[in-house]
């Protein structure tokens, strides 16, 4: 169905840096610039060969309007190359890749820098409406007496801030926090706290093993100018174990719930940037090819069960391409919550769910645990919301390369009740 083949040429990401309760050292644009600079330096094409720059980001800072353009210009990409920002919540990074994929596929572009970035630690803290109204009264007060009068109206309630990050992670339609939507999925499919914690321990173990093996070459160290550098995902817990995780209290549904900070993705800063190209550009500049993008899919579902998004987005790709689970060598399903990934796996094994919601006659089958997120995921490395969608596609491509495998699917759930998925292939074993 695509008119032009679309190739992933190369990609880099920053280490994912856990938010430590205060603004982190990097703005979202700093992160994307740090990931993309070495990436671009590795390439053989001049920067003006780029047709556009597309970046996903949910909450840029006040000085980063259309952050993609800010990033492009800071990278020294010529002013004549346009840039635009995309936002599809947790899938913004994948949306950037998908937009690039479609533009190249349709022949509108041949070479695109695309990816995602997020500095969650720097998410804005806002004045509430009371305070904004009070400030406006103060501005319009002319005389000293009037101003004094306005000052007497200031109350403690005015000072309660609006924390954009908390609001952003709460569904505005159904009123549930993202963690609560996972509690709902666990309830529906009978997923236990132990299952969630076990999944999380594995995530940490796998990420630690991947780091130690040195195969995470996609990570570019980032420097803060204060004498520090960061070269690994610092949210990793090498001491993660069932007893350790069991000690944590449920965070979203307090007291009786199962979803804890330990089996959820961490609040994190990071960026992942990729270069996508048409066959024409691959040939012209003799570019390396990491993988080919074969297909992509977006899906909508009940916002209260948004975590099942991947089950809904991946199913049509299998169906359309007449593939079964066995045809997929490796899977990356973003670990927003351990319970939500487990829910997706469970849903695909239920005849009734697959029939009612996914248009299959019977269950699709079981995604093998040893082929899923084999180098860990967001539970262990964190989930910089705008960046993760780009990271899982980049990492999947690298997994296929290291394993000399052929086909993989990357997918994630999206706050608001959506799912996104992308299938890639490389010329590995068939």
């Amino acid at each position: 169905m695509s008119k032009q083949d679309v190739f992933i040429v190369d990609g880099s990401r920053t280490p994912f840096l856990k938010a430590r309760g205060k603004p982190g050292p990097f703005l979202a644009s700093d992160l994307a610039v740090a990931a993309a600079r070495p990436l671009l330096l590795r390439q053989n094409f001049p920067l003006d060969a780029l047709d556009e720059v597309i970046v996903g980001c949910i909450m840029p800072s006040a000085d980063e309007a259309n952050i993609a353009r800010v990033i492009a210009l800071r990278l020294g990409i010529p002013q004549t190359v346009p840039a635009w920002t995309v936002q599809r919540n947790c899938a913004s990074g994948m949306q950037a890749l998908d937009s690039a994929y479609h533009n190249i596929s349709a022949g509108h572009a041949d070479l695109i820098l695309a990816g995602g970035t997020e500095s969650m630690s720097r998410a804005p803290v806002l004045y509430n409406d009371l305070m904004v109204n009070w400030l406006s009264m103060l501005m319009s007060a002319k005389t000293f007496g009037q101003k004094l009068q306005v000052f007497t109206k200031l109350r403690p309630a005015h000072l309660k801030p609006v924390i954009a990050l908390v609001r952003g992670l709460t569904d505005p339609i159904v009123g549930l926090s993202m963690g609560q939507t996972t509690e709902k999925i666990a309830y529906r499919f009978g997923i236990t706290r132990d299952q969630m914690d076990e999944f999380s321990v594995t995530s940490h173990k796998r990420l630690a093993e991947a780091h130690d093996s040195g195969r995470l070459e996609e990570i570019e160290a980032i420097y803060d100018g204060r004498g520090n550098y960061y070269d690994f995902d610092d949210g990793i817990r090498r001491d993660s174990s069932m007893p350790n995780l069991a000690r944590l209290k449920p965070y979203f549904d307090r007291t009786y719930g199962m979803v804890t900070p330990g089996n959820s993705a961490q609040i994190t800063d990071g960026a992942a940037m990729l270069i996508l190209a048409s066959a024409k550009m691959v040939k012209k500049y003799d570019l390396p090819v990491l993988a080919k993008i074969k297909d992509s899919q977006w899906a909508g579902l009940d916002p209260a069960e948004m975590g099942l998004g991947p089950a809904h987005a991946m199913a049509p790709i299998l169906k359309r391409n007449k593939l079964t689970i066995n045809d997929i060598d490796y899977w990356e399903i973003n670990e927003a919550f351990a319970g939500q990934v487990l829910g997706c796996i469970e849903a695909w094994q239920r005849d009734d769910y697959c029939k009612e919601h996914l248009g299959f006659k019977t269950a699709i089958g079981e995604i093998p645990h040893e082929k899923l997120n084999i180098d860990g995921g967001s539970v262990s490395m964190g989930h910089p919301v705008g960046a993760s969608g780009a990271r899982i596609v980049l990492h999947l491509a690298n997994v296929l390369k290291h394993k000399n495998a052929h086909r993989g699917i990357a997918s994630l759930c999206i706050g608001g009740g959506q799912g996104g998925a992308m299938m890639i292939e490389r010329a590995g074993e068939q």
Partner: protein
Amino acid sequence: MAYQNWMIEKDDDDICWLHLDVADSSTNVLSSAVLDELNQILNELAQSLPKGIVFVSDKNNGFIAGADINEFTHITTEQQATDFLQRGHDIMNKIESLPCVSVAMIKGFCLGGGMELALACSYRVMCDDKSTRVGLPEIKLGIHPGYGGSVRSILKAGPVAAMNAMLTGRMLTGRVAKSMNLVDDLVPERQLKRAARYFVINKPIPRPLGIKDKIMNHRLVRPLIANQMRKTVAKKAPQQHYPAPYQLISLWQKHMDNPRRMLEKEIESVASLVTNPTAQNLVRVFFLMENLKTQGRKKDFDPRHIHVIGGGVMGGDIAAWCALRGFNVTVQDQKPEMLAGTMQRSLTMFQKKFKKDKRSIRESMDRLVPDTKGVGIKQADLIIEAIFEDKNVKQTLYKSIEPQMKEGAILATNTSSIPLEELATCLKDPGRLVGIHFFNPVALMPLVEIVRGENTDEKIMNQALAFGRHIDKLPLPVKSSPGFLVNRILMPYLLEAVEMVGEGIAPEMVDKAALNFGMPMGPIELADTVGLDVCRSVATILSKDQNLNLPKRMESMVEHKKLGKKSGEGFYKWVKGKPVKDKNASYANLKELEDRMIMRFLNEAAACLREKVVATEDLIDAGVIFGTGFAPFRGGPLHYIHAQGVATLSNRLDELNKLYGTRFKANEVWDSLGSG
């Protein structure tokens, strides 16, 4: 009437725009011809007075760079100087007393005489772009403002700010000049003409001096402030070597109550300075600097990407400096912790340079890419290697990077001790290797030695010289021989100083003797600052070819890890980055110490001339002044030899030879110097 240098344009509002475009010159300077024409123009305008006049430059590079320094060199007597200055004063007074408004519209450099002209106008409007700077840098030439600038700047900016600007001679950004009240408004280029017109039409009342400035200017307060100024100046420029700042301070202290009188006294003061050897030598230094600037032609090389290998202090600072000058830079080191340090020092450098200009700081940081994998190698037009001094390691590196390099890319080494010819043997194309030798600290040292190896291509050499100009340094072409020019000349002088300490003379006295001669820092303090291990390794390399003995004292200090500033103790103890000096140290015959050090310095300079390490006497003087800080008011070592008399100094060498040994044996070139 048509003029050679000026163009008069009258507009519908009866404003007269005086365009200056000095004939046969790339820069506007106030030469005699320019001033004579201006005098005529002013006389003419007095006949039919316009609503106002605006001074404009038609040169792209600036408003007016100053007086014509060439003319300055022809002045030999005080009377000539007085006449020269009086003519300038008459014209500035004429502008000031015009019955109509006058405005200086400043874009680009506005310095010295140019600034004095601007100050004589009723108003000054200044462009806010980065290349526009104003200043009164006369002090750097051993004089002070002489076209009324000392008086008028104080009247506009107050004594503290104006004297500070004149005593340091620094260039002022628009922001600073505006806050000092030296200019009346600071506007973007698009509003510059409209602003000039606004001032002519509206004649706003200029900002008066504040109460504080009026107090500082008071007859009874001035002596206190003046003494404070003298103390501050003395730290940098002792009176016996640099009279100008002291005369400027006295001029203000004595005559501020009567500006008319102060203007007259300004002429007297500058006239006495112009003929003083200090001023003449500093003018010589100015021309030496211009000479170095012409060694590289920017158009010979258009690099975009610089790759620096080595994230130590030297490599990191070179990389940061290149990024600051606008290049895309990768700085490579295997160790990310080294690069983390590099990025920290770079940020500090950028913050110092750009102050509150956060966007420029970020741009420079974005241009500087830390690189652990060497991704910058194949992008680079120039690779600068600045790793530690080990021939084998360097050669292994060169062999691995040469195949990745772009066609035509230059490989440069920052080595100070390994001959280029030896390094080049491992290269397929030895012609692409050149030396680019920086000095520490990179951001402050103006000189770079561009080292021509036996194999270095002429084109590569010229490109390296051009690069020196691109990064706003002074490039000195030198032959590849041990120590090149600067280190080689410094070393005998440093070792003689160490020798004297070994003889039991207090280091404080050794340093004092050198300061008496006019060195910027004593040699013992310098050795401690550079690091005794570094000194020893340079000296060891030089001693192979030269008549150098390593003082035992240095050896033992290095063995005991007394390395100087960095280890906390060398010849001095170092506390908080400052040497602790014994105030009670004394020595009877400081002149003898001075002679021993300086004569070895001069003798080595003569040897470099004989061996053609550098092509000409002037280039040796230039390299030594900008590379070592050699007393600038003495005009350079070879100039000094001629000024003192070759015979006198070579006799002194013979005496020292008899007293202290053959290291004082006069170099053969001294005989030929006499005839030169």
